[in-house]
Protein backbone atom coordinates (compact mmCIF):
# COMPACT_ATOMS: atom_id res chain seq x y z
CA UNK A 1 0.00 0.00 0.00
CA UNK A 2 1.15 3.51 -0.77
CA UNK A 3 1.07 6.16 1.88
CA UNK A 4 -0.10 9.71 1.41
CA UNK A 5 2.86 11.69 2.65
CA UNK A 6 5.06 13.70 0.37
CA UNK A 7 8.36 15.21 1.48
CA UNK A 8 9.52 18.39 -0.14
CA UNK A 9 13.26 17.74 -0.03
CA UNK A 10 14.10 21.39 -0.72
CA UNK A 11 12.52 22.36 2.54
CA UNK A 12 13.75 19.42 4.60
CA UNK A 13 16.87 20.31 6.60
CA UNK A 14 17.32 16.88 8.10
CA UNK A 15 16.63 18.19 11.59
CA UNK A 16 15.17 14.82 12.84
CA UNK A 17 12.13 16.38 14.53
CA UNK A 18 9.80 14.11 12.53
CA UNK A 19 12.05 11.10 13.13
CA UNK A 20 11.45 11.45 16.85
CA UNK A 21 7.75 12.23 16.58
CA UNK A 22 6.80 9.30 14.37
CA UNK A 23 4.86 6.81 16.50
CA UNK A 24 5.94 3.83 14.42
CA UNK A 25 9.58 4.87 13.94
CA UNK A 26 9.09 4.92 10.18
CA UNK A 27 11.38 7.87 9.41
CA UNK A 28 15.16 8.14 9.22
CA UNK A 29 17.37 11.01 8.17
CA UNK A 30 20.13 10.20 5.76
CA UNK A 31 22.24 12.56 3.67
CA UNK A 32 20.50 15.52 5.32
CA UNK A 33 17.03 14.47 4.23
CA UNK A 34 14.21 12.55 5.85
CA UNK A 35 13.17 9.24 4.32
CA UNK A 36 9.87 7.57 5.13
CA UNK A 37 9.82 3.79 5.14
CA UNK A 38 6.51 3.19 3.53
CA UNK A 39 5.99 -0.24 5.01
CA UNK A 40 6.15 1.12 8.55
CA UNK A 41 4.10 4.26 7.96
CA UNK A 42 0.50 4.35 9.16
CA UNK A 43 -0.25 7.73 7.60
CA UNK A 44 -1.18 9.47 10.81
CA UNK A 45 0.43 12.73 9.75
CA UNK A 46 2.38 13.46 12.93
CA UNK A 47 5.35 14.36 10.73
CA UNK A 48 3.23 16.91 8.89
CA UNK A 49 2.18 18.50 12.16
CA UNK A 50 5.58 18.67 13.81
CA UNK A 51 7.87 19.61 10.92
CA UNK A 52 9.20 23.10 11.74
CA UNK A 53 9.99 23.70 8.05
CA UNK A 54 6.64 22.59 6.68
CA UNK A 55 8.43 20.15 4.44
CA UNK A 56 5.68 17.54 4.39
CA UNK A 57 2.54 17.70 2.35
CA UNK A 58 -0.25 15.23 1.87
CA UNK A 59 -1.13 13.48 -1.38
CA UNK A 60 -4.51 14.91 -2.26
CA UNK A 61 -6.60 16.44 -5.00
CA UNK A 62 -7.61 19.98 -5.87
CA UNK A 63 -10.95 21.44 -6.83
CA UNK A 64 -9.97 20.99 -10.49
CA UNK A 65 -11.19 17.44 -10.13
CA UNK A 66 -14.76 18.70 -10.19
CA UNK A 67 -14.46 19.34 -13.91
CA UNK A 68 -14.12 15.64 -14.63
CA UNK A 69 -17.63 14.89 -13.47
CA UNK A 70 -21.09 15.98 -14.47
CA UNK A 71 -22.34 16.05 -10.88
CA UNK A 72 -20.22 16.53 -7.77
CA UNK A 73 -20.98 15.66 -4.19
CA UNK A 74 -18.76 16.70 -1.31
CA UNK A 75 -18.49 14.85 1.99
CA UNK A 76 -17.21 17.12 4.75
CA UNK A 77 -15.56 15.10 7.48
CA UNK A 78 -17.36 15.88 10.73
CA UNK A 79 -14.29 17.62 12.08
CA UNK A 80 -14.55 20.19 9.28
CA UNK A 81 -17.47 22.00 10.85
CA UNK A 82 -15.51 22.62 14.04
CA UNK A 83 -12.85 24.63 12.22
CA UNK A 84 -14.80 27.88 11.92
CA UNK A 85 -15.09 30.53 14.58
CA UNK A 86 -18.40 32.34 15.10
CA UNK A 87 -20.36 29.83 13.09
CA UNK A 88 -23.90 29.28 14.26
CA UNK A 89 -25.31 27.03 11.56
CA UNK A 90 -23.74 23.97 9.95
CA UNK A 91 -25.63 24.73 6.78
CA UNK A 92 -23.67 27.92 6.17
CA UNK A 93 -20.69 25.67 5.51
CA UNK A 94 -22.80 23.39 3.32
CA UNK A 95 -24.20 26.27 1.31
CA UNK A 96 -20.72 27.74 0.91
CA UNK A 97 -19.57 24.44 -0.54
CA UNK A 98 -22.24 24.67 -3.22
CA UNK A 99 -20.83 28.05 -4.16
CA UNK A 100 -17.45 26.33 -4.70
CA UNK A 101 -19.05 24.25 -7.43
CA UNK A 102 -20.47 21.19 -5.71
CA UNK A 103 -23.97 20.06 -6.58
CA UNK A 104 -24.74 18.54 -3.24
CA UNK A 105 -23.30 18.08 0.25
CA UNK A 106 -23.49 14.85 2.24
CA UNK A 107 -21.82 15.27 5.62
CA UNK A 108 -19.90 12.20 6.82
CA UNK A 109 -22.18 12.38 9.84
CA UNK A 110 -24.86 10.74 7.71
CA UNK A 111 -22.89 7.52 7.42
CA UNK A 112 -21.91 7.82 11.06
CA UNK A 113 -25.51 8.07 12.15
CA UNK A 114 -26.53 5.10 10.03
CA UNK A 115 -23.70 2.99 11.44
CA UNK A 116 -24.57 4.14 14.94
CA UNK A 117 -28.20 3.25 14.42
CA UNK A 118 -27.28 -0.18 13.10
CA UNK A 119 -25.10 -0.84 16.14
CA UNK A 120 -27.70 0.43 18.55
CA UNK A 121 -30.45 -1.70 17.07
CA UNK A 122 -28.36 -4.81 16.77
CA UNK A 123 -25.56 -4.91 19.33
CA UNK A 124 -24.18 -8.07 17.76
CA UNK A 125 -22.96 -6.01 14.81
CA UNK A 126 -20.40 -4.34 17.04
CA UNK A 127 -20.10 -6.22 20.34
CA UNK A 128 -18.85 -9.75 20.60
CA UNK A 129 -18.75 -11.86 23.71
CA UNK A 130 -15.27 -12.43 25.15
CA UNK A 131 -13.65 -10.15 22.61
CA UNK A 132 -12.66 -6.56 23.20
CA UNK A 133 -13.66 -4.80 20.01
CA UNK A 134 -11.56 -1.96 18.61
CA UNK A 135 -13.27 0.61 16.42
CA UNK A 136 -12.17 1.03 12.82
CA UNK A 137 -13.13 4.63 12.10
CA UNK A 138 -9.54 5.83 12.18
CA UNK A 139 -7.68 4.24 9.26
CA UNK A 140 -4.34 4.95 10.91
CA UNK A 141 -5.30 2.73 13.85
CA UNK A 142 -6.54 0.03 11.50
CA UNK A 143 -3.21 0.08 9.72
CA UNK A 144 -1.36 0.02 13.01
CA UNK A 145 -3.24 -3.12 14.04
CA UNK A 146 -2.56 -4.80 10.70
CA UNK A 147 1.11 -3.95 11.01
CA UNK A 148 1.97 -4.33 14.67
CA UNK A 149 -0.89 -6.02 16.48
CA UNK A 150 -1.89 -8.77 14.09
CA UNK A 151 -3.38 -10.86 16.86
CA UNK A 152 -5.97 -8.15 17.28
CA UNK A 153 -7.25 -8.26 13.71
CA UNK A 154 -10.39 -10.15 14.81
CA UNK A 155 -10.99 -7.45 17.43
CA UNK A 156 -11.26 -4.69 14.86
CA UNK A 157 -14.86 -3.77 14.14
CA UNK A 158 -15.41 -4.84 10.56
CA UNK A 159 -17.30 -1.94 9.13
CA UNK A 160 -16.63 0.70 6.56
CA UNK A 161 -15.67 4.21 7.65
CA UNK A 162 -18.56 6.63 8.11
CA UNK A 163 -17.45 8.62 5.07
CA UNK A 164 -17.50 5.49 2.93
CA UNK A 165 -21.02 4.61 3.99
CA UNK A 166 -22.00 8.20 3.22
CA UNK A 167 -20.42 7.99 -0.22
CA UNK A 168 -22.15 4.74 -1.17
CA UNK A 169 -25.48 6.21 -0.18
CA UNK A 170 -24.83 9.58 -1.82
CA UNK A 171 -23.94 8.01 -5.15
CA UNK A 172 -27.01 5.82 -5.16
CA UNK A 173 -29.28 8.73 -4.38
CA UNK A 174 -27.59 10.94 -6.97
CA UNK A 175 -28.00 8.32 -9.69
CA UNK A 176 -31.68 8.21 -8.91
CA UNK A 177 -32.01 11.95 -8.78
CA UNK A 178 -29.98 12.87 -11.87
CA UNK A 179 -30.35 9.80 -14.09
CA UNK A 180 -26.59 9.96 -14.68
CA UNK A 181 -24.48 6.80 -14.74
CA UNK A 182 -22.61 6.33 -11.43
CA UNK A 183 -19.20 7.03 -12.96
CA UNK A 184 -20.24 10.52 -14.02
CA UNK A 185 -20.86 11.44 -10.43
CA UNK A 186 -17.79 12.68 -8.59
CA UNK A 187 -17.58 12.33 -4.83
CA UNK A 188 -14.95 14.14 -2.79
CA UNK A 189 -14.00 13.95 0.88
CA UNK A 190 -12.85 16.99 2.83
CA UNK A 191 -10.22 15.11 4.77
CA UNK A 192 -8.46 15.82 8.06
CA UNK A 193 -5.46 13.56 7.47
CA UNK A 194 -3.30 11.43 5.16
CA UNK A 195 -4.82 8.27 6.66
CA UNK A 196 -8.25 9.10 5.31
CA UNK A 197 -6.74 10.14 1.98
CA UNK A 198 -5.03 6.80 1.67
CA UNK A 199 -8.29 5.14 2.52
CA UNK A 200 -9.96 7.10 -0.27
CA UNK A 201 -7.29 6.08 -2.80
CA UNK A 202 -6.98 2.50 -1.63
CA UNK A 203 -10.06 1.35 0.23
CA UNK A 204 -10.01 -1.83 2.31
CA UNK A 205 -12.74 -4.39 1.81
CA UNK A 206 -14.39 -2.60 -1.09
CA UNK A 207 -14.11 -3.79 -4.65
CA UNK A 208 -13.51 -0.33 -5.96
CA UNK A 209 -13.19 3.24 -4.79
CA UNK A 210 -16.35 4.80 -3.43
CA UNK A 211 -14.88 8.27 -3.04
CA UNK A 212 -13.25 9.76 -6.14
CA UNK A 213 -11.05 12.45 -4.70
CA UNK A 214 -9.69 13.72 -1.39
CA UNK A 215 -9.49 17.41 -0.61
CA UNK A 216 -7.22 18.72 2.14
CA UNK A 217 -9.26 20.32 4.91
CA UNK A 218 -6.93 23.29 5.43
CA UNK A 219 -7.16 24.20 1.76
CA UNK A 220 -10.96 24.04 1.57
CA UNK A 221 -11.15 25.91 4.86
CA UNK A 222 -9.59 28.99 3.30
CA UNK A 223 -11.41 28.73 0.00
CA UNK A 224 -14.72 28.70 1.85
CA UNK A 225 -14.21 31.80 3.96
CA UNK A 226 -15.59 34.31 1.50
CA UNK A 227 -18.39 32.18 -0.07
CA UNK A 228 -19.62 31.54 3.47
CA UNK A 229 -19.95 35.26 4.11
CA UNK A 230 -22.32 35.56 1.17
CA UNK A 231 -24.69 32.86 2.43
CA UNK A 232 -28.04 34.23 3.59
CA UNK A 233 -30.71 31.58 3.83
CA UNK A 234 -29.15 28.12 3.70
CA UNK A 235 -31.17 24.97 3.01
CA UNK A 236 -30.76 22.03 5.35
CA UNK A 237 -28.26 19.50 4.11
CA UNK A 238 -27.00 18.16 7.40
CA UNK A 239 -29.58 15.38 7.49
CA UNK A 240 -27.96 13.76 10.53
CA UNK A 241 -28.69 14.53 14.17
CA UNK A 242 -26.50 14.80 17.24
CA UNK A 243 -25.79 11.09 17.14
CA UNK A 244 -23.99 11.19 13.79
CA UNK A 245 -22.39 14.55 14.40
CA UNK A 246 -20.83 13.61 17.69
CA UNK A 247 -18.44 11.29 15.89
CA UNK A 248 -15.10 12.72 14.97
CA UNK A 249 -14.40 13.67 18.50
CA UNK A 250 -12.99 11.04 20.77
CA UNK A 251 -15.69 9.78 23.13
CA UNK A 252 -18.56 10.16 20.67
CA UNK A 253 -19.12 6.45 20.51
CA UNK A 254 -18.80 5.90 24.22
CA UNK A 255 -21.68 8.29 24.83
CA UNK A 256 -23.77 6.21 22.49
CA UNK A 257 -23.63 3.15 24.73
CA UNK A 258 -23.92 4.53 28.25
CA UNK A 259 -24.72 1.09 29.66
CA UNK A 260 -21.77 -0.73 28.10
CA UNK A 261 -18.11 -0.70 29.02
CA UNK A 262 -16.76 1.51 26.27
CA UNK A 263 -13.37 3.16 26.51
CA UNK A 264 -12.30 6.13 24.40
CA UNK A 265 -8.58 6.32 23.70
CA UNK A 266 -6.92 8.97 21.58
CA UNK A 267 -3.35 10.01 20.82
CA UNK A 268 -0.69 7.73 19.34
CA UNK A 269 1.05 6.88 22.59
CA UNK A 270 -2.19 6.00 24.35
CA UNK A 271 -3.46 3.93 21.45
CA UNK A 272 -0.20 1.97 21.32
CA UNK A 273 -0.42 1.34 25.01
CA UNK A 274 -4.02 0.20 25.04
CA UNK A 275 -3.56 -2.11 22.04
CA UNK A 276 -0.61 -3.62 23.80
CA UNK A 277 -2.69 -4.16 26.94
CA UNK A 278 -5.45 -5.84 24.96
CA UNK A 279 -2.89 -8.05 23.29
CA UNK A 280 -1.43 -9.10 26.65
CA UNK A 281 -4.88 -9.67 28.07
CA UNK A 282 -4.13 -7.08 30.73
CA UNK A 283 -7.13 -5.00 29.78
CA UNK A 284 -10.12 -6.99 30.88
CA UNK A 285 -12.74 -4.43 31.77
CA UNK A 286 -13.76 -3.08 28.38
CA UNK A 287 -16.10 -4.38 25.71
CA UNK A 288 -15.32 -1.79 23.10
CA UNK A 289 -12.39 0.56 22.69
CA UNK A 290 -12.96 3.63 20.62
CA UNK A 291 -9.63 4.60 19.11
CA UNK A 292 -8.28 7.59 17.23
CA UNK A 293 -4.65 8.13 16.48
CA UNK A 294 -4.82 11.89 16.86
CA UNK A 295 -5.28 13.74 20.11
CA UNK A 296 -8.98 14.55 20.43
CA UNK A 297 -9.78 12.35 17.45
CA UNK A 298 -10.07 13.81 13.97
CA UNK A 299 -10.17 17.34 15.37
CA UNK A 300 -6.46 16.75 15.88
CA UNK A 301 -5.80 15.64 12.29
CA UNK A 302 -2.76 17.25 10.66
CA UNK A 303 -4.84 18.98 7.98
CA UNK A 304 -7.12 20.73 10.44
CA UNK A 305 -6.75 24.43 11.13
CA UNK A 306 -8.21 25.12 14.57
CA UNK A 307 -6.70 23.61 17.70
CA UNK A 308 -8.59 20.41 18.48
CA UNK A 309 -9.96 21.59 21.80
CA UNK A 310 -11.48 24.77 20.43
CA UNK A 311 -12.83 22.87 17.42
CA UNK A 312 -14.59 20.52 19.80
CA UNK A 313 -16.11 23.45 21.59
CA UNK A 314 -17.36 24.91 18.30
CA UNK A 315 -18.93 21.59 17.50
CA UNK A 316 -20.68 21.40 20.83
CA UNK A 317 -22.31 24.75 20.13
CA UNK A 318 -23.21 23.84 16.58
CA UNK A 319 -25.19 20.74 17.45
CA UNK A 320 -27.09 22.34 20.34
CA UNK A 321 -30.46 22.78 18.65
CA UNK A 322 -30.36 19.60 16.59
CA UNK A 323 -32.51 16.53 17.24
CA UNK A 324 -30.81 13.60 18.96
CA UNK A 325 -31.15 11.42 15.91
CA UNK A 326 -32.56 12.03 12.45
CA UNK A 327 -31.64 9.01 10.40
CA UNK A 328 -32.52 5.38 10.81
CA UNK A 329 -31.08 2.41 9.11
CA UNK A 330 -33.74 0.77 6.97
CA UNK A 331 -33.45 -2.62 5.35
CA UNK A 332 -33.03 -1.25 1.85
CA UNK A 333 -30.19 1.00 2.98
CA UNK A 334 -28.66 -1.78 5.00
CA UNK A 335 -28.77 -4.11 2.00
CA UNK A 336 -27.40 -1.56 -0.40
CA UNK A 337 -24.33 -0.80 1.63
CA UNK A 338 -21.49 -3.26 1.97
CA UNK A 339 -20.78 -3.19 5.69
CA UNK A 340 -18.12 -5.75 6.19
CA UNK A 341 -14.48 -5.96 5.29
CA UNK A 342 -11.57 -8.28 5.81
CA UNK A 343 -8.44 -6.81 7.30
CA UNK A 344 -5.19 -8.33 6.11
CA UNK A 345 -1.90 -8.52 7.96
CA UNK A 346 0.96 -6.29 6.91
CA UNK A 347 4.30 -8.00 7.42
CA UNK A 348 7.13 -5.58 8.12
CA UNK A 349 9.76 -8.03 9.37
CA UNK A 350 12.65 -8.60 7.05
CA UNK A 351 13.72 -11.92 8.55
CA UNK A 352 12.02 -14.93 7.08
CA UNK A 353 12.89 -17.52 9.68
CA UNK A 354 13.19 -17.63 13.44
CA UNK A 355 16.90 -18.33 13.03
CA UNK A 356 17.46 -15.23 10.95
CA UNK A 357 15.28 -13.10 13.20
CA UNK A 358 17.27 -14.30 16.20
CA UNK A 359 20.51 -13.51 14.48
CA UNK A 360 19.37 -9.97 13.66
CA UNK A 361 18.05 -9.34 17.13
CA UNK A 362 21.10 -10.84 18.83
CA UNK A 363 23.35 -8.57 16.79
CA UNK A 364 21.15 -5.59 17.58
CA UNK A 365 21.19 -6.39 21.31
CA UNK A 366 24.98 -6.67 21.31
CA UNK A 367 25.37 -3.30 19.67
CA UNK A 368 22.68 -1.69 21.82
CA UNK A 369 24.61 -2.58 24.96
CA UNK A 370 27.56 -0.49 23.75
CA UNK A 371 25.51 2.58 22.83
CA UNK A 372 25.08 5.53 25.21
CA UNK A 373 21.24 5.34 25.20
CA UNK A 374 21.02 9.11 24.78
CA UNK A 375 18.59 8.69 21.90
CA UNK A 376 20.21 11.82 20.51
CA UNK A 377 19.10 11.20 16.94
CA UNK A 378 22.41 12.24 15.34
CA UNK A 379 22.58 8.90 13.58
CA UNK A 380 19.29 9.73 11.87
CA UNK A 381 17.36 7.06 13.77
CA UNK A 382 14.81 7.88 16.50
CA UNK A 383 16.57 5.97 19.27
CA UNK A 384 19.67 3.94 20.08
CA UNK A 385 17.40 0.89 20.04
CA UNK A 386 16.12 1.61 16.54
CA UNK A 387 19.65 2.41 15.40
CA UNK A 388 20.96 -0.97 16.61
CA UNK A 389 18.24 -2.67 14.66
CA UNK A 390 19.03 -0.60 11.55
CA UNK A 391 22.66 -1.69 11.80
CA UNK A 392 21.79 -5.35 12.21
CA UNK A 393 19.47 -5.16 9.24
CA UNK A 394 22.18 -3.51 7.16
CA UNK A 395 20.58 -0.10 6.79
CA UNK A 396 23.14 1.72 8.89
CA UNK A 397 26.68 1.27 10.11
CA UNK A 398 28.02 1.19 13.64
CA UNK A 399 30.10 4.28 13.02
CA UNK A 400 27.07 6.28 12.03
CA UNK A 401 26.78 6.78 15.78
CA UNK A 402 28.46 10.02 16.74
CA UNK A 403 29.67 8.46 19.99
CA UNK A 404 31.46 5.74 18.11
CA UNK A 405 33.08 8.38 15.95
CA UNK A 406 34.23 10.22 19.06
CA UNK A 407 35.69 6.98 20.41
CA UNK A 408 37.67 6.57 17.21
CA UNK A 409 38.86 10.17 17.38
CA UNK A 410 39.99 9.74 20.96
CA UNK A 411 41.82 6.56 20.10
CA UNK A 412 43.75 8.37 17.39
CA UNK A 413 45.16 10.96 19.80
CA UNK A 414 48.21 10.23 21.84
CA UNK A 415 47.85 12.89 24.56
CA UNK A 416 44.90 12.93 26.89
CA UNK A 417 44.80 16.75 26.86
CA UNK A 418 44.66 16.73 23.13
CA UNK A 419 41.80 14.25 23.26
CA UNK A 420 39.85 16.39 25.69
CA UNK A 421 40.22 19.44 23.54
CA UNK A 422 38.83 17.67 20.56
CA UNK A 423 35.69 16.21 22.03
CA UNK A 424 32.61 17.96 23.42
CA UNK A 425 32.47 18.54 27.23
CA UNK A 426 30.48 15.42 28.18
CA UNK A 427 33.25 13.20 26.81
CA UNK A 428 36.20 14.85 28.55
CA UNK A 429 37.92 13.24 31.52
CA UNK A 430 36.52 14.14 34.92
CA UNK A 431 38.60 16.73 36.81
Amino acid at each position, binding site marked *: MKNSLILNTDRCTGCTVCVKACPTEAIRVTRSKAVIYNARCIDCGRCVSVCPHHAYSVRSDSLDRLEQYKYNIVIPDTSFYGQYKNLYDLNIVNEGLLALGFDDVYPAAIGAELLADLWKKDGSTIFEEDLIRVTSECPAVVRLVAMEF*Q*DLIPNVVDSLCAFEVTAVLARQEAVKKTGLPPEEIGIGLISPCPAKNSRVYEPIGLESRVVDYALPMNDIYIKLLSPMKAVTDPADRVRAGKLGLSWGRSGGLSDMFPDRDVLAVDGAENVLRILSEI*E*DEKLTEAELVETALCTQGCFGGCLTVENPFTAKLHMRRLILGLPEQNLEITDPIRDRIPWDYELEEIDTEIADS*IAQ*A*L*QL*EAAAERLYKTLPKFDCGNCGAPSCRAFS*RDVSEGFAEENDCIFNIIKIMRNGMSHEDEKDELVPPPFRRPL
Partner: protein
Amino acid sequence: MDTVKLVYEIDGDNFSAAGEASTAVKRVLKKLKLPSAIVRRAVICMYEGEINMVIHADGGRAYVDVDEEKIVIRLEDRGPGIPDIGKAMQEGWSTASAEARNSGFGAGMGLPNMKRNSDNMKIETELGVGTTVTMTILFGGEAS
Protein backbone atom coordinates in the same frame (compact mmCIF):
# COMPACT_ATOMS: atom_id res chain seq x y z
CA MET B 1 22.91 -21.07 17.03
CA ASP B 2 22.27 -17.45 17.92
CA THR B 3 20.83 -16.66 21.29
CA VAL B 4 19.22 -13.38 22.15
CA LYS B 5 20.15 -12.56 25.73
CA LEU B 6 18.28 -9.91 27.63
CA VAL B 7 18.86 -8.65 31.17
CA TYR B 8 16.64 -6.31 33.15
CA GLU B 9 16.97 -4.77 36.58
CA ILE B 10 13.62 -4.75 38.35
CA ASP B 11 13.02 -2.02 40.94
CA GLY B 12 11.39 -3.03 44.18
CA ASP B 13 8.27 -1.30 45.49
CA ASN B 14 7.77 0.87 42.43
CA PHE B 15 4.28 -0.24 41.45
CA SER B 16 3.92 2.21 38.62
CA ALA B 17 7.10 1.01 36.91
CA ALA B 18 6.15 -2.63 37.44
CA GLY B 19 5.66 -4.28 34.07
CA GLU B 20 8.26 -2.23 32.21
CA ALA B 21 10.62 -5.15 31.77
CA SER B 22 7.90 -7.40 30.41
CA THR B 23 6.92 -4.67 27.95
CA ALA B 24 10.54 -4.50 26.81
CA VAL B 25 10.73 -8.29 26.48
CA LYS B 26 7.57 -8.29 24.46
CA ARG B 27 8.94 -5.73 22.06
CA VAL B 28 11.92 -7.97 21.35
CA LEU B 29 9.90 -11.20 21.16
CA LYS B 30 7.53 -9.66 18.65
CA LYS B 31 10.45 -9.16 16.29
CA LEU B 32 11.45 -12.81 16.39
CA LYS B 33 8.85 -14.31 14.11
CA LEU B 34 7.62 -16.52 16.93
CA PRO B 35 4.04 -17.77 16.93
CA SER B 36 1.96 -15.15 18.70
CA ALA B 37 0.71 -17.68 21.25
CA ILE B 38 4.32 -18.25 22.34
CA VAL B 39 4.93 -14.53 22.69
CA ARG B 40 1.76 -14.11 24.72
CA ARG B 41 2.62 -16.95 27.08
CA ALA B 42 6.16 -15.67 27.59
CA VAL B 43 4.92 -12.16 28.27
CA ILE B 44 2.39 -13.42 30.83
CA CYS B 45 5.09 -15.48 32.60
CA MET B 46 7.50 -12.57 32.57
CA TYR B 47 4.89 -10.08 33.74
CA GLU B 48 3.62 -12.14 36.66
CA GLY B 49 7.16 -12.97 37.72
CA GLU B 50 8.24 -9.36 37.45
CA ILE B 51 5.30 -8.21 39.56
CA ASN B 52 6.06 -10.82 42.19
CA MET B 53 9.61 -9.52 42.46
CA VAL B 54 8.29 -5.99 42.89
CA ILE B 55 5.62 -6.68 45.48
CA HIS B 56 7.12 -9.61 47.42
CA ALA B 57 10.88 -9.40 47.03
CA ASP B 58 12.00 -5.77 46.70
CA GLY B 59 13.02 -6.19 43.10
CA GLY B 60 15.67 -8.30 41.43
CA ARG B 61 17.02 -9.19 38.04
CA ALA B 62 15.42 -10.87 35.03
CA TYR B 63 17.34 -12.84 32.42
CA VAL B 64 15.63 -13.82 29.20
CA ASP B 65 17.36 -16.10 26.70
CA VAL B 66 15.80 -16.97 23.38
CA ASP B 67 17.13 -19.46 20.87
CA GLU B 68 15.56 -21.37 18.01
CA GLU B 69 13.82 -23.82 20.34
CA LYS B 70 12.83 -22.05 23.50
CA ILE B 71 12.54 -19.03 25.70
CA VAL B 72 14.06 -19.31 29.14
CA ILE B 73 13.09 -16.69 31.70
CA ARG B 74 15.07 -16.60 34.93
CA LEU B 75 13.98 -14.26 37.68
CA GLU B 76 16.38 -13.82 40.57
CA ASP B 77 15.70 -11.88 43.73
CA ARG B 78 17.20 -11.42 47.18
CA GLY B 79 13.86 -11.19 48.89
CA PRO B 80 12.47 -13.08 51.88
CA GLY B 81 12.05 -16.43 50.10
CA ILE B 82 8.90 -18.50 49.94
CA PRO B 83 8.24 -20.54 53.10
CA ASP B 84 5.77 -23.02 51.58
CA ILE B 85 5.91 -23.44 47.80
CA GLY B 86 2.92 -25.78 47.83
CA LYS B 87 0.74 -23.10 49.36
CA ALA B 88 2.17 -20.35 47.19
CA MET B 89 1.25 -22.35 44.12
CA GLN B 90 -2.40 -22.58 45.15
CA GLU B 91 -4.79 -20.33 43.32
CA GLY B 92 -5.94 -17.55 45.61
CA TRP B 93 -3.12 -17.87 48.16
CA SER B 94 -1.48 -14.52 48.72
CA THR B 95 0.54 -12.63 51.30
CA ALA B 96 0.45 -9.37 49.35
CA SER B 97 0.46 -6.18 51.44
CA ALA B 98 -2.59 -3.95 51.67
CA GLU B 99 -0.74 -1.44 49.54
CA ALA B 100 -0.13 -4.01 46.81
CA ARG B 101 -3.75 -5.10 46.96
CA ASN B 102 -4.84 -1.52 46.55
CA SER B 103 -2.84 -1.41 43.34
CA GLY B 104 -4.74 -4.39 42.01
CA PHE B 105 -2.24 -7.13 42.86
CA GLY B 106 -2.59 -9.96 45.33
CA ALA B 107 -5.28 -12.22 43.90
CA GLY B 108 -2.96 -15.16 44.38
CA MET B 109 -3.09 -16.01 40.71
CA GLY B 110 0.42 -15.13 39.58
CA LEU B 111 2.37 -18.32 40.23
CA PRO B 112 -0.43 -20.63 38.98
CA ASN B 113 -0.60 -18.48 35.85
CA MET B 114 3.14 -18.76 35.32
CA LYS B 115 2.95 -22.51 35.75
CA ARG B 116 0.11 -22.81 33.26
CA ASN B 117 1.80 -20.71 30.62
CA SER B 118 5.23 -22.31 30.74
CA ASP B 119 6.27 -25.81 29.73
CA ASN B 120 8.51 -26.05 32.73
CA MET B 121 8.76 -23.98 35.88
CA LYS B 122 11.31 -24.39 38.64
CA ILE B 123 11.33 -22.46 41.91
CA GLU B 124 14.48 -22.39 44.02
CA THR B 125 14.04 -20.52 47.26
CA GLU B 126 15.76 -20.08 50.58
CA LEU B 127 14.25 -18.16 53.46
CA GLY B 128 16.06 -14.89 54.04
CA VAL B 129 18.25 -15.40 50.97
CA GLY B 130 16.04 -15.11 47.95
CA THR B 131 14.14 -16.84 45.21
CA THR B 132 14.94 -17.85 41.67
CA VAL B 133 12.11 -18.79 39.35
CA THR B 134 13.07 -20.34 36.02
CA MET B 135 10.46 -20.84 33.32
CA THR B 136 10.94 -22.48 29.95
CA ILE B 137 8.64 -22.06 27.01
CA LEU B 138 9.30 -24.55 24.24
CA PHE B 139 8.35 -23.61 20.69
CA GLY B 140 7.18 -27.16 20.12
CA GLY B 141 5.69 -27.40 23.61
CA GLU B 142 2.28 -28.47 24.78
CA ALA B 143 1.35 -25.99 27.51
CA SER B 144 -1.91 -24.20 26.90
